[in-house]
């Protein structure tokens, strides 16, 4: 389109300008060898903090699953040496400042956002929560209760879509440090003590494991002050947790999770050996966007399953762990991983259409692998991503998070990296990456359904699974394709097929 280059340039100017003055420094002074990532913006009235430790759930000792999340939560949603949790709440309230924590597989991040009017008062509390936590038994009990109820009364019972994703992760990474969820298990939570938390914090929240992130309208010298303050942490980082190769998948391996519900939630996935650090990642980005860009109608899955057939609310694909940021369509930053996975998310479908939907999603993937992407789709999708990716970093906090992730992956600023790599791609590069990393034969599947036995029997029988339309006439073209989908051979691994009661998951 005419003017496209200008579009790109202008958006780049706006959104990357925030990073033009950014820097990541390692200052070698005695006792101050701390890494700082900063994006100063003198005119901004807002300041965003991201205090990142390179430890997450993979650093949890065996039997203490959930300790990474409990420890960070008791610190961020607790008190300091001088202030109780209620004191902290009362102090932050007139500022409308917020403090949060985000725990993932490999990193833990303490976030803070404040108006410049209150920087000093806020920072005093924020830094003390991390450097001088109160470790109050009452806060500990409250946080453990929250986590336990999250497993027992929310995830396992009233949140089928996230249960599907958690079950897939568990199934896909059996015996691997990535297995499990941040909240741990009901039993492991019950066994934790405050002393366990203190030991975990001392071992993992260390100088060598730390990246200090700050962005916005803070005064000159503030980051040096933070470096000095955080140098009270212990020095050495814990040993790096080695990640084994995930177990190979043999055929279509299905875990059916049984619980009462009004429709089936389905997640499909397989580990892939590619991350943002790899050149191929950028070719695979284009392929994935074409197959199922998150919460858009661009993807083949969405167009063919929802728009053409009205099967459900949405169908998307991913080539890395994706956690949506609030109500936006963009991913949260600061969830990096050394190993990634490909996945398809099928939002709840009627029980009658569960297996038709599963077959259609895998068939769409199969067709992408077999046929590749057309020249036209390659060009339009690449152009889309070049523009759309600029929108991912609209706030200082998100820019900061992306910059820190870029350091983690060693890519240079990720948004710039996309702008650099995508124009160099050819359709052949994309199709080669598809062939190299994606396949439709060996996949793990989690299905959340109350019709567990029926779904198992249907999968084992290999019967046709025709679509049931809610109403209306359907074009002959669609009906013809429906015949192919209902008979699509899933190559089910019968030995791996299992039914699990939802109440048994994450119990211990």
């Amino acid at each position, binding site marked *: 389109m005419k003017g496209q280059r200008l579009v790109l340039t202008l958006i780049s100017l706006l959104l990357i300008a925030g990073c033009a003055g950014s820097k990541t420094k390692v200052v070698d002074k005695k006792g101050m060898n701390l890494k700082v990532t900063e994006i100063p913006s003198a005119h901004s009235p807002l300041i965003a903090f991201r205090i990142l430790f390179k430890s997450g759930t993979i650093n949890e000792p065996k039997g203490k699953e959930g300790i990474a999340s409990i420890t960070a939560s008791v610190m961020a949603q607790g008190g300091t040496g001088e202030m109780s949790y209620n004191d902290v*709440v009362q102090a932050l309230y007139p500022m*409308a400042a917020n403090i949060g924590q985000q725990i993932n597989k490999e990193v833990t991040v303490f976030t803070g956002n404040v108006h410049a009017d209150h920087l000093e008062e806020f920072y005093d509390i924020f830094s003390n929560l991390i450097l001088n936590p109160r470790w109050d038994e009452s806060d500990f009990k409250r946080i453990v209760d929250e986590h336990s109820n999250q497993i027992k009364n929310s995830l396992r019972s009233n949140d089928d879509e996230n249960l599907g994703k958690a079950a897939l992760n568990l199934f896909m990474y059996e015996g691997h440090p990535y297995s499990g969820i941040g909240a741990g298990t009901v039993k492991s939570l019950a066994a934790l003590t405050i002393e366990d938390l203190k030991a975990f914090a001392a071992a993992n929240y260390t100088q060598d494991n730390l990246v200090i992130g700050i962005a916005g309208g803070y005064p000159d010298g503030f980051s040096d002050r933070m470096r000095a303050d955080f140098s009270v942490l212990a020095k050495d980082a814990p040993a790096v947790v080695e990640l084994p190769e995930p177990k190979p998948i043999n055929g279509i391996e299905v875990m059916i999770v049984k619980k009462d519900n009004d429709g089936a939630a389905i997640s499909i996935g397989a580990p892939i050996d590619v991350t943002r650090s790899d050149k191929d990642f950028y070719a695979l980005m284009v392929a994935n966007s074409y197959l199922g860009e998150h919460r858009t109608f661009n993807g083949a899955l969405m167009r063919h399953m929802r728009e053409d057939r009205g099967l459900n609310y*949405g169908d998307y694909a991913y080539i890395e762990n994706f956690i949506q940021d609030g109500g936006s369509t963009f991913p949260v930053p600061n969830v990096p991983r050394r190993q990634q996975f490909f996945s398809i998310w099928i939002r709840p479908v009627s029980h009658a259409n569960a297996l038709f939907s599963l077959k259609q999603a895998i068939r769409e993937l199969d067709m992408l692998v077999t046929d590749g992407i057309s020249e036209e789709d390659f060009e339009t999708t690449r152009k889309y991503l070049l523009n759309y990716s600029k929108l991912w970093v*609209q706030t200082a906090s998100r820019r900061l998070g992306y910059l820190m992730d870029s350091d983690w992956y060693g890519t240079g600023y990720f948004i710039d990296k996309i702008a650099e790599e995508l124009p160099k791609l050819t359709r052949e590069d994309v199709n080669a990456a598809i062939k190299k990393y994606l396949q439709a034969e060996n996949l793990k599947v989690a299905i959340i359904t109350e019709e567990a036995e029926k779904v198992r029997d249907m999968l084992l029988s290999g019967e046709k699974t025709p679509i049931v339309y809610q109403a209306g006439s359907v074009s002959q073209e669609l009906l013809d394709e429906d015949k192919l989908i209902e008979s699509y051979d899933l190559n089910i691994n019968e030995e791996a097929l299992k039914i699990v009661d939802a109440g048994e998951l994450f119990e211990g």
Partner: protein
Amino acid sequence: MNFSKSSLLSLFALIPLLFTFFPADTKGGEKIFQYPINVGVLKNGLKVVSVEFDSPGLIAFYTIVRTGSRNEIEPGKSGFAHFFEHMMFRGTEKYSSTGYNDILKGLGADHNAFTNDDITAYHSLSSSDALEAIMDIESDRFLNLKYDEEDFKKEAGAVLGEYRKSITSPFLPLIEKLRDTAYQTHTYKHTTIGFLKDIEDMPNQYEHSLYFFDTYYRPENCVILVVGDVNHESLMALAEKYYGNWESGPGQPEIPQEAPQTEEKREKLGWDNPTLPIMAIGYHGPAFSDREIDMPALDLLSQVVFSRSSPLYRKLVIDEQLVDFIQGGAGDKRDATMFMIFTRVKETANVEMVEQEIYKALEDVKNVLVDEERLASIKSHMKYQFAMGLNSPKSVAGTLAHYIGLTGDPETVNRVYELYDRVTAEDIQMVTKKYFTNENKTVVNLSYDGGE
């Protein structure tokens, strides 16, 4: 929404949103919204609003239709405004649904839509160079929407899927029950996504969709809002070019008003899957107004009693840990709304005690004036929350769209702010006595019944 497009704001997300747009106090008569607001009106009644925001090369574009589930007055038509929002993505003769999406894809735009009780909003974030292209495709679907019955029925399946994903959470049936019980005649009786029986009947409502479009998707009922790198004069010229031929509508039917509630109502709701008991308490309250003090005073009351800094929160969540969350507030609505309180109790045996603690906290406000220091702290919180929320063209547009939806006038944001500044401890006490009475109250308790 309709795309994901359809975005009904998630129900759980709706609760915190009640507090999102609280303006705060002013100093020296300054307006809370400090960016100049430009307004123009076409001959057909279409209002065009722009705000220049420091975001070079970027614009947020909103079309606000001042129609939502409030307008679903016909029996059996609950959820229709939201369903129709989906249909707005089904194309025209000029741009098919695929063609429409391809253009936005080519622009790299982030785009979506949502429906609530009072409005339906279609929004995008894109480069400012794309303004004319966006006005071309947006005006085309508002003037020339065209879909066949087959597409209509398919889209009904997507809406049913949206309900299906939402109903895994107990909050949807809880809110459904609270509204259905508390209201008799007003359309706030149903949620925006609608009753399941009406959603299941949507494939049969093609003819009603034609009436709905003809009645509500008219220029005098809509507002165009552009925030970011935009020039108002150029915007008005484009508006005339693309929307000038849009014909005014035949007028809209009246919304039936709700008679005062005369006695307390209580309901119980069983839930098939394990959950902690959840309690919802609703009190009928006022409609939104940027002239009257009642709603602003209730907004401050919600902070006094239910914010994290409140004594009730400290007692129930922090000290005694009887509940895992509690919140209460009245969302801004065009018609008389409810002040809703939600809490999740950790032990079934404590549900009644928690309910009594809530009433005691409200009675305290009736008996003792909120002290000035606390009032100042609350106003400070609201001011900074407002300021920290205005950090991108999208968030600025979202804030203005909220107030435009309520009154049609973007200056409402400043008038409401002035009202917040004027709220006194006496005002808070007055509205507490006025609205928090037993005969004005509805209570719904949801609990796990193992599918019985």
